[in-house]
């Protein structure tokens, strides 16, 4: 028979005002299985907790029910007290008579009766609680960072500086991400490359960082502390151990007219190439889709159509027959930093989006997006930093900047604000005016959102010191008229139509999650929101965690982010990973499902509904090792304790510890004691 102690708290007057606590303690004293019952003014205070501890020892209690506030408030407090008194802490439960009773009722008699009912329900539950032990999981103290942009680099450096090995995986041939493409950064106008490239080199040379470029995530197995990630190292055709990056190969490559991804299509590259001069690693990759030799092979030519780069390579580093390689990395935590792409607002849209055909993006070379302008303004860009328009290389005397193309537009674009465009438009207007003194910069905006440190001052500077003309209103059409681009817009503050003859137009297109993020999220058992950004575990309190324990988010994979935000998030993930790695074993509440192998029929319905992939099939063997059946097994490291599996189990073989069938039915049963 259980010997349960009941402790009724007055919570000062919070409970005592509407609930007769002494009467509750008295009524519950006679409940079957209750060995001790008392009330006290402040049960959570030190003397209150001492009462609990004393009663556990004096009455040799097997369970404790504290009738007080919500378990979300003080369950931990009282469980700790029980633990200190030598009672297994999972034998203690809270009966919520404050939030769910005294605070929401006025009638003292009703509230007291309800408090007694709540107490009885929880007593019946505690009778069926079992002593449980905290689950301990070993931790592999090695992290993986997916994405080698500024967020990924920062996260990798922080973890590596903390003394742990990091595997940095980048799908492009070089780390650096979008930040390496930028000319200068707001609000300080310092050169992006100058602050980024030292970080890239530091990551490359760090003894604790292992770099996989030109690689993607193939498969993720395991759980927090114990992930097994299969990385696909795409065939590079260049042996990085032999190559010294001399450049002889790309000098002789005959395919010279492939649009450069790094220059956002504004310049050309060869088929064997390094993405940009400061690339890390500074070694080339062979783009097989555009290579003459591989195009020939695809057509079925018997003799290779080219081979110049291999002939030119004195180090003999080029091998046309390499294939994709798979590497399994064992890590304890994963940081996702896959970044963003820009909304391609052309007329043709693949994903059911409408696009902005009226703006002529992709049809007229002088209508460009923000990243293309970054390349034009960059000293390392196709124009060497001179502002020249793409169509004829002339200096544009009037440039129109259009804000919010695809952002904050429910009909044709994204509902959200892309966050960085107001700032980079101000920056672009300034950079343009600094280089073309007699030029005219006109910006069409909806609102100016400049809510970072020094941001509003910066955008005001663009208007006041650099004389950018800000027009509040939208642009309806942009079209070619001889040498000029006609921009039709509306000035809502002056209530008049505006027509501008522009030489070049820059569209601040919306930020979208990078390609393949949805598939990656699936591999990680993370969810994505309606826009495709990966969901954080809690928007306020757990912004860099995901619902998959051990997987963290940094930068624009979670929402549009500027550089300071992305770096701050990256360092936050670094701190999370380091605290995870600070212990040899993880401790978890034992609120996990367990399978009764005696009765499980191995139908695996539980595995179908498990949101975490925590359930696997195990073989049952006879004494002589013959497989004679299957059973489900719940991995306690992965299970989060939702109990969905239990409700679908046909043979009633799976039970969620702390919310077992026995416990719940006992609670329901206690309802018959009403009246």
């Amino acid at each position, binding site marked *: *028979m*259980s*010997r349960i102690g009941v402790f009724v708290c007055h919570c000062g007057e919070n409970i005592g005002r509407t609930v007769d606590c002494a009467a509750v303690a008295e009524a519950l004293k006679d409940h079957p*299985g209750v060995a001790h019952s008392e009330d006290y003014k402040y049960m959570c205070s030190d003397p209150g907790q001492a009462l609990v501890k004393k009663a556990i020892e004096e009455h*040799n209690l*097997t*369970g404790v029910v504290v009738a007080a506030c*919500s378990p979300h408030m003080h369950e931990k407090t009282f469980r700790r007290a*029980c633990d200190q008194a*030598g*009672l*297994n*802490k999972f*034998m203690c439960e809270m009966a*919520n008579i*404050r*939030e*769910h*009773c005294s*605070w*929401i*009722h*006025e*009638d003292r008699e009703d*509230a007291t009766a*309800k408090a007694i*009912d*709540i107490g009885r*329900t929880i007593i*019946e539950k*505690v*009778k*069926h609680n*079992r*002593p449980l*032990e905290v689950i301990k999981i070993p931790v592999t103290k090695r992290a993986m960072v997916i994405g080698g942009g500024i967020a990924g680099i920062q996260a990798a450096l922080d973890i590596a500086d903390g003394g742990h090995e990091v595997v940095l995986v980048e799908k492009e041939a070089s780390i650096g991400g979008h930040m390496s493409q930028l000319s200068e950064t707001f609000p300080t106008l310092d050169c992006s490359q100058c602050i980024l490239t030292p970080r890239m080199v530091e990551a490359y040379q760090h003894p604790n960082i292992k770099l996989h470029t030109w690689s993607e995530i193939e498969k993720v197995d395991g759980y927090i502390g114990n992930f097994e990630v299969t990385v696909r190292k795409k065939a590079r055709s260049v042996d990085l151990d032999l190559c010294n990056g001399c450049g002889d190969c790309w000098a002789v490559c005959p395919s010279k007219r492939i649009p450069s991804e790094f220059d956002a299509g504004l310049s050309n590259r060869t088929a064997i190439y390094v993405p940009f001069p400061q690339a890390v690693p500074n070694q080339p990759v062979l783009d097989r889709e555009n290579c003459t030799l591989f195009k020939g092979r695809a057509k079925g030519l018997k003799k290779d159509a080219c081979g110049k780069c291999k002939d030119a390579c004195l180090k003999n580093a080029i091998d046309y027959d390499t294939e994709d390689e798979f590497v399994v990395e064992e890590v304890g935590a994963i940081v996702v930093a896959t970044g963003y792409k820009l909304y391609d607002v052309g007329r043709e849209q693949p994903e059911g989006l409408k696009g902005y055909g009226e703006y002529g993006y992709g049809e007229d070379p002088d209508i460009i997006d923000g990243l293309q302008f970054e390349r034009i303004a960059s000293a390392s860009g196709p124009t060497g930093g001179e502002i020249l328009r793409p169509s004829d290389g002339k200096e544009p005397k009037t440039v129109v900047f259009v804000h919010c193309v695809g952002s904050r537009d429910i009909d044709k674009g994204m509902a959200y604000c892309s966050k960085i465009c107001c700032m980079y438009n101000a920056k672009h207007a300034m950079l343009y005016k600094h280089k073309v003194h007699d030029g005219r910069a006109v910006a069409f905006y909806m609102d100016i959102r400049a809510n970072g440190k020094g941001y509003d001052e910066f955008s005001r500077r663009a208007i006041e010191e650099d004389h950018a003309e800000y027009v509040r209103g939208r642009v309806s059409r942009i079209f070619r008229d001889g040498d000029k681009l006609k921009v039709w817009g509306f000035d809502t503050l002056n209530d008049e139509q505006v027509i501008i003859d522009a030489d070049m137009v820059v569209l601040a297109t919306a930020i979208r999650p990078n390609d393949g993020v949805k598939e990656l999220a699936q591999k990680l058992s993370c*969810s994505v929101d309606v826009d495709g950004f990966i969901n954080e575990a809690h928007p306020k309190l757990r912004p860099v965690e995901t*619902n998959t324990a051990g997987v963290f988010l940094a930068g624009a994979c979670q929402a549009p982010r500027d550089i300071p935000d992305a770096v701050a998030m990256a360092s936050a993930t670094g701190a999370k990973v380091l605290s995870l790695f600070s212990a040899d074993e993880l401790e978890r509440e034992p*609120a996990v499902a367990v399978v009764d192998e005696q009765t499980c029929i191995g139908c695996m319905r539980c595995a179908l*509904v498990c*949101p975490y992939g925590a359930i696997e099939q195990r073989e049952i063997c006879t004494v002589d090792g013959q497989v004679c059946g299957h059973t489900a097994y719940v991995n306690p490291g992965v299970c*989060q304790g*939702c*109990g*969905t599996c*239990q*409700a*679908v189990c046909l043979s009633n073989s799976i039970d969620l510890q702390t*919310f077992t069938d*026995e416990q*719940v*039915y*006992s*609670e*329901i*049963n206690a*309802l*018959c004691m*009403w*009246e």
Partner: protein
Amino acid sequence: MNSQHSDTFEPRITAFVCNWCTYTGADLAGTSRLHMASNVRIIRLPCTGRIDPLFIVKAFERGADGVIVSGCHPADCHYTSGNYHARRRFAVFHDIMQFLGVDPRRMTFSWVSASEGAKWKDVVNETVANIRELGPYEAYRALAPDAVEPWPEAVDGLTPAGDQEPAAKEVAS
């Protein structure tokens, strides 16, 4: 309890709620001091996905006049998809309930998030008013055994919790 449908009838309502949204929403109703009918007894579960439809049948059998099931809004589940499983399960279960003789008007399904204390109050008050209108649920209770045995402490040869006390002490130390 008066079996006549009268003014003295106080409905007994059992609520199965998830820990993360509705239970926390009910906590918020408390911290916001939103006064509501005192007829609802809450059973806390981790997720609506944990709710076995038989819990509801059992509640009616044990004397409930009405049942509320409430969890996180679709797409807000703490466990990603538990509430979707619950929703599908109850769509099917709705018909089986009628076959079992349970009046579907006595069941309320709702989504109450952790920030919707006021909505929880409305759900409680509306359900209590509806059930008050319908009267006590004698019809179903009559089908259940007369004498209700307390749920046994020892089930299928498992040791009663009380006899495990020394082991518990060892674990804790």
